[in-house]
Every structure is written in structure tokens, then in C-alpha cells.
């Protein structure tokens, strides 16, 4: 169910219409879209979720909802992404069933191992580099930690935080199956082009 490596996951940005971002990201070759919007009303979130799910089906991409397991179920999303402050993965699994994909954010080996134990399907690991997309209470984890985690767990890892055209390929060399971005796609003049360049960069052999 998780796309074959290397792949691009695009997370929607609170400052832009998630449906527009998703559509452009899919055009550019994103394999996963994660709907993440912390301040939207339930009704708004559901309506976006249905639109993005339909687009993802068209592009054969995965659609993941951040935090809201209920919105994921209601919109028939492919899965959810859970942060450390969200519902634990093993509880979400009971609600979602075996078929759904559950991703968990981790920023240390301990958190990654716990997520694996809790039945996660992938780990969102980061932030690898400094990032301005989200307020972070801790410093970047760096590529060494990414490598260590990739060597210690068997789940696919999606590297997140400060991913760029320059460093995308090296994250895959460190053991990540894919990368996730927010602003590197949404805050560009041409989000579809930005996504497609990232997909290209991911597939570049390490020089």
C-alpha cells in the first residue's frame, strides 16, 4: 500500500486552499497527499477531504488525514497521520481496521520504536533540517539519526523537515523511503513544477 521508494508526500499548508495544493502536487507526481489543517471546522475539513480523496483516486495516489481519524473514516481516506499529541496508533487501528494506513510522527529512535510496536505502517521522521513550516520546540534531528532509525526499524520512513531539491536524494541514501514537504511545494510560484522537480531529485542517483 505504501508507494514504492522513493516517493514524495505533500502535506497541505494552512495558508492555502488544501484542494488546490493537492491538485497541483498530484500533477507534479506526489504519491501521498496529507490533509493537515489545524483550524478548519469539521464540515470544511470533511468537504476538503472528499475532494482530495477523489483527486488522489484519479492519480492513484494515497490520501491521508492528519489527526482526525473520524474525518478519515467519514471521507474514506486511505489512512491517517498521527502526531505524538494525537491518538495513539494502536487505538486508531481499532477504529480504522487492518486495511487503513497509519503513519506516526517521530523525532527520536524511542518514538519510532514505540510507533512500530503500536502497529504503525510508516514513520514520519524529523525534522531533519531546520524548517519554518512549523514551530518546533527542538533542534533538527539530522541525517545521522535518520540513518540510525532507518537501520533499527523495518517500517518505511518518510523524512520531513527542510527537504529541498539539494538534499532529497541524500535522505533516500540515508534509508528514507520517501520525503514529505509542506512549504517546498506550497510556497513556490509553481507548486506542480516544484513537486515534479522534487520527484526528479529523489530519483537521482547519488553522485
Amino acid at each position, binding site marked *: 500500500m505504501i508507494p514504492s521508494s522513493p516517493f514524495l508526500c505533500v502535506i497541505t499548508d494552512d495558508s492555502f486552499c488544501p484542494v488546490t495544493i493537492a491538485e497541483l502536487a498530484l500533477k507534479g507526481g506526489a504519491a501521498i497527499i496529507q490533509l493537515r489543517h489545524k483550524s478548519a*471546522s*469539521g*464540515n470544511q475539513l*470533511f468537504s476538503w477531504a472528499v475532494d482530495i480523496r477523489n483527486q488522489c483516486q484519479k492519480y492513484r495516489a494515497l490520501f491521508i488525514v492528519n489527526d*482526525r481519524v473520524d*474525518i478519515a473514516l*467519514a471521507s474514506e481516506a486511505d489512512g491517517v497521520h498521527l502526531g505524538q499529541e494525537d*491518538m*495513539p496508533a494502536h487505538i486508531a487501528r481499532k*477504529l480504522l481496521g487492518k486495511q487503513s494506513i497509519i503513519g506516526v510522527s517521530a523525532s527520536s529512535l524511542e518514538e519510532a520504536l514505540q510507533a512500530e510496536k503500536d502497529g504503525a505502517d510508516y514513520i514520519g521522521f524529523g525534522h531533519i533540517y531546520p524548517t519554518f513550516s512549523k514551530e518546533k520546540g527542538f533542534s533538527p534531528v539530522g541525517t545521522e539519526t535518520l540513518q540510525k532509525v532507518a537501520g533499527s526499524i523495518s517500517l518505511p520512513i518518510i523524512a520531513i523537515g527542510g527537504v529541498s531539491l539539494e538534499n532529497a536524494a541524500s535522505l533516500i541514501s540515508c534509508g528514507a523511503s520517501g520525503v514529505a514537504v509542506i512549504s517546498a511545494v506550497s510556497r513556490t510560484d509553481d507548486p506542480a513544477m516544484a513537486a515534479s522537480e522534487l520527484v526528479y531529485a529523489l530519483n537521482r542517483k547519488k553522485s
Partner: protein
Amino acid sequence: MEHNKIQGTSLPHLYLISSGQENPDNGTLLLEQLNLLPRTPCCMVQIREKQLNAKQLLTLALKARGCPLPEGSRLLLNERVDIALAARLDGVHLPESGCYPDKFRPFAPNMIFGCSIHSPESLTIAEESGADYLLFGPVFDTPSKRKYGTPLGLEKLGQICRSTTLPVFALGGITPENGARCMTEGAYGIAGLSIFQDTSRFVDTLEQFYRIVSP
């Protein structure tokens, strides 16, 4: 009545809403109130602690579920159907801007779904999407709702109650003094938030209200 088939018996007529946003305390007041409940008549309790993240909310919901409540009471959570299911609560209350009950019913068939309504338009949406009960307000002036403008008043409450067969709980500035007038207008029950915050008078207040709503 059709709506009373949910959970086998009819819904209580009193409705208590926890008030985390006005008084951020991670649910301490709610748990204090719940622990006082066994000495009072049954009621609907809505956990509404929007300042908490999903993990904290789940912990609070599980603690609340562990409190022995008077028989016939229903424990609900604001908005989050997933957390309500995980904590085995009785239902979910959806704000007017929330997603509609019919979107959740397929995977939460046994839950009670209530909807907040502030107008005849939102009444229609709530009815069509299969709400089990309605929360209408603010009927009277109340500090927690002042930022949303003037109260809707008894007349509008009456109009709503007469145009639906669903149970309508009146909310907003309801006191033991004016509560009876809401019932006269056709309300099924009365709901409160601020008035239940003084735990020293909590049981008395609930009992006063119970006398008003008892058929």
C-alpha cells in the same frame, strides 16, 4: 417517539456542558462535577474541552467514562467522533460548523448525535442529516456567548421547538428562574455551562433544574 429509540430509552432532560475554554484546567472541573453526579438525577454530559489535544482529550474521556453516573445519564464529547468511539462514550455533539451526523453514522451506528443550531436553516440541515437531538441557543444573555451577539430569545426558541419533532435543549443564560419559560415554549430540556461551574452549589442547581424539566 422515533428519536427515543436511540439507546433504548429516552434522553435525560438536563444537559451539562463542561467549560474548558473559559477556564482551562485540563478537565479537573469536569471530573469534579462528574463525581458529584451520582447524588443527582440523570443528565446528559458533554465534554467540551477544546484547549486539549487529541491525546489529552482521550485520557480525559476515558477518566470520565470511568466515573459512575446516575442511571440513564449519557456521556458525550464535543465534535470528535473518533475519541468518543475509543473511549466508548454514548455520543457526540456537533457544532453548527461541524461535519454532519450522517457522515459518521456508518461507522458509529450506536452513537447519539446532537447538533447545535442557531437558526431555522441549521435546523433543516440537522434534521436532514439525522440528528438525535438539538441544542438551541443562546436563549438568554450569557457571558460565554456575548461575543456572538445578542441572545436569540424565547420566541425563536418556541418557533424552533414547534417546527421539529426532535428534542430541543435550550442553552444560554438558563437559570432556575427562567428555565420554566423555556419548557413552556416547548423545549425538551435545558442545558447549562457557566451555571454549573460553582461546584459548591452544583447538586442544588441540578436538582432545581430537575424540578423544572420533570414532565
